[in-house]
């Protein structure tokens, strides 16, 4: 199709916006072909028909760069890393280029008061129109003193920034549902953004780390349709979290057939059979890992021979551990006491107790009657 090749006739409205995305990309040595490949990949990630690729290209060409601020709280920076270290740099570059990232602790050049002043400026001057990205959980205990930036608590900052944003994207499981900082006993009272700031418009993009493709696709959806993608009951976009891993898994035929890996490295493992008995949480987890995969579609845990850890579900880590067992431990019992051991003990105990009762009853005299009594 005869689309303008990096033309610079785009309207240069807005202070940050000087060139179209395609011009910017061309200047960086990204060809039009690569850009169109990216747009096609995005339409696939969003489960849109291929015909949407040119529309995505047009939308990205014409867009006025929305401002984005990236807040980092109780996190390991894994989600930032996932985005920045995408194996194919054009994907990350496109995200960075179509967005005006005014604040992001890991990558910004400014520091200290200057950096905080940038954030304050965005919150003040672009109220209701910027996008906030939150990485990491927010501690609630002791008024949130466990995570402070520039002398202010994460909770305080999140209320201000997320409360004033057009939308907040909670990236990673920690920002979405509390994640690992919220694992029992949750010493800091860590929660996800939606719990910490109930008034904010939040889209959850859980995962440990999040799949950068899903973040890019969410942003592209926003730029293309001017609204946020449809979400499920847990605030996750349906295009990325609408299907269960188990139901899209490449090892699913082995599950249905009844072929299971029993030990790491056994014959079944070498043949690529189902990892269900190795504690795979694919049946419990909604994510597009089997189709979207990680690191530019290179691989994902189950393809690599390891079960799904269920990292993108709420209450990860508590409900998904032990990682190599199907069920969580029974609360109140020892670490190694599984539900089945306790249950079998209960059944045997019941049978033994009634056995004893039966023997005693059999030798008991004078406790019988002849028929039930009319009432």
């Amino acid at each position, binding site marked *: 199709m005869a689309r303008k090749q990096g033309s610079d006739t785009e309207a240069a409205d807005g202070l940050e916006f000087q060139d179209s995305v395609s011009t910017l990309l061309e200047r960086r040595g990204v060809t039009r072909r690569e850009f169109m490949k990216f747009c096609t990949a995005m339409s696939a990630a969003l489960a849109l028909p291929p015909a949407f690729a040119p529309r995505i290209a047009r939308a990205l060409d014409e867009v006025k760069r929305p401002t984005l601020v990236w807040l980092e709280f109780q996190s390991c920076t894994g989600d930032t890393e996932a985005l920045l270290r995408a194996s194919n740099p054009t994907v990350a570059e496109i995200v960075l280029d179509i967005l005006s990232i005014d604040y992001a602790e890991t990558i910004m050049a400014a520091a200290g008061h200057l950096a905080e002043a940038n954030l304050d400026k965005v919150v003040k001057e672009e109220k209701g129109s910027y996008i906030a990205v939150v990485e990491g959980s927010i501690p609630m205990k002791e008024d949130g003193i466990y995570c402070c930036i520039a002398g202010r608590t994460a909770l305080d900052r999140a209320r201000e920034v997320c409360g004033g944003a057009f939308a907040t994207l909670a990236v990673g499981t920690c920002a979405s549902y509390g994640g690992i900082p919220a694992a029992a006993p949750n010493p800091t009272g860590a929660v996800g953004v939606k719990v910490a700031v109930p008034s904010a418009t939040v889209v959850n993009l859980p995962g440990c780390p999040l799949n950068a493709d899903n973040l890019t696709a969410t942003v592209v959806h926003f730029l293309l349709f001017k609204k946020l993608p449809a979400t*499920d009951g847990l605030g996750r976009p349906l295009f990325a979290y609408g299907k269960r891993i188990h139901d899209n898994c490449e090892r699913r*035929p082995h599950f249905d057939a009844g072929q299971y890996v029993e030990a790491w490295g056994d014959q079944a493992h070498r043949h690529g059979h189902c990892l269900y008995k190795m504690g795979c949480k694919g049946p419990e987890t909604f994510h597009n890992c089997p189709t979207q995969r990680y690191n530019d579609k290179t691989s994902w845990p189950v393809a690599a021979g390891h079960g799904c850890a269920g990292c993108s579900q709420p209450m990860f880590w508590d409900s998904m551990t032990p990682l190599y067992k199907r069920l969580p431990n029974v609360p109140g019992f020892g670490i190694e006491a599984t539900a*089945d051991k306790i249950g*079998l003990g209960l059944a045997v105990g019941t049978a033994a107790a*009634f056995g004893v009762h039966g023997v005693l009853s059999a030798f008991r005299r004078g406790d*019988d009657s*002849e028929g039930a009594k009319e009432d």
Partner: protein
Amino acid sequence: MGHLYEKYVWEIPVRATHWVNVLSIAVLTLTGIYIGSPATLGATPSDFVMGWVRFVHFTAAYLFAVSVASRIYWAFRGNRYASWREFFPILTPAGRRNMLATFRYYTFLCKKGPQPVGHNALAGTTYALVFVLYLVMIVTGFTLYAEHAPQGTMHKLTGWLLVLFSNQTLRLTHHCVMWLLIGFAIHHVYSAWLMDVKERGGVMSSMFSGYKAVRTKD
């Protein structure tokens, strides 16, 4: 002493749901144990062992749910021995006295317990608890089952449970309640045997025929 006669106690819906429950619980337990901890029974990827086991589990689950719902309906329509009042003796002073007397009989503290025509007070109370466990099983089971069709009707109806408890917590509950029901089944068969021997009212066969041997008041 009054004379013995055959009294029609258990109506057909009571007996039918009882035996459907027995059958479906047995099938659900066996298939459920396989689903929870399967053995490699498939020889080739074209086999469908787990597929069939799950199919049987879900079919039995529907059967069980219909049976439990029917029995609850019959608790409001059936005779006095099928009535919901039989399951809550704790609500009346006489019922509470009967519960204590039955407890004393079971624990060898007295020689004669009440020998009611219907359920004894402790049995009735136990069945009320067991029906709560049934409902827990049905709700957790169908909530987990609904995850195969995200955004479907069943998933939308049960989604709040997944948000509230997480699917793994529901799965653990589903698993633990199975063991409680296995414990109940052992207790239930034993108690029925004991009552059959001691009461001599033919309670075991009454679950097939509906009739018990009852002595008239005099």
